[in-house]
């Protein structure tokens, strides 16, 4: 009995036909219906997370700024206090020097007077 010729289910003997079959076979598949929702949910989660992290970063930055300002303010206040105390001490020394100077002048004047009386 003669064997029946094989009936080609797809015409793949010619390049163009084979390429046409491939185009049909490799048509885009529809994405699962849940994919879009999952992507949008993941996007929202990621955005919220990013916003939360950004907020935390700003909070940390603000806390650092406040701490730096407090430290700087404290240091400036301390420096001003030191300067004020130094100025007070300088004023006291100047006063003491003025008093001493006046006392020495008086002493000199008296000694000069005594010397003049002794000479006469």
């Amino acid at each position, binding site marked *: 009995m003669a064997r029946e010729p094989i009936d*080609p289910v797809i015409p793949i003997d010619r390049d163009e036909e084979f390429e046409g079959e491939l185009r049909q076979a490799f048509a885009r598949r529809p994405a*699962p219906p849940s*994919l879009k929702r999952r992507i949008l949910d993941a996007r929202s989660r990621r955005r919220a997370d990013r916003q939360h992290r950004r907020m935390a970063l700003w909070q940390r930055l603000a806390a650092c700024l406040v701490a730096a300002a407090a430290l700087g303010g404290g240091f400036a206040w301390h420096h001003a206090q030191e300067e004020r105390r130094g100025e007070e001490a300088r004023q006291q020394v100047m006063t003491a020097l003025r008093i001493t100077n006046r006392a020495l002048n008086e002493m000199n004047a008296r000694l000069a007077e005594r010397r003049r009386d002794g000479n006469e």
Partner: protein
Amino acid sequence: MTRDVPRDWQPEFERLLDEHQSMVFSLAWRMTGDRGLAEEIAQDVFLELDMHLSHIESPEHALFWLRRVAMSRSADALRRRRVRGVDLWVEIEENHGAPVEERASPLGARLEQLLATLPEPQRAALLLRYQEDLTPEEIARVLDAPLATVKSHLQRGLKLLRSKAQSTLKEFIRGA
């Protein structure tokens, strides 16, 4: 990229997602052979798009970017799986079978299975050629490969796929 793009064109994430999710998903699925992994890849690709949305200049740029990143992420996934020694295409129908209405025709499915047996570069080139209908020049740009290499992959891939299809389908017909 010859089409005039309005100067005030702004990429809209949801619109791009609606338009291109099946393209990204199909590329990832056919490259990896794993439906679940393809969904993960598609999700990652679109989340990455969201991060780079400000750099997207036109609808064509978005399409090019998505194809390129989808192919690159699929190749990364294959590499990671190879390192772990998992044969992806063994899993395709067992673990991540598509719902019946999404399945391709028996012949289409057979050609897809044969595509999966090709070396990865040939598979990528053929997929972009016959799923996305790209020219060899466009494929070279998407895959960031020399044009001559892409042409060679296309030629060899097509030849190999055709010979596999001829022998497998004849057996298939005899068995039917």
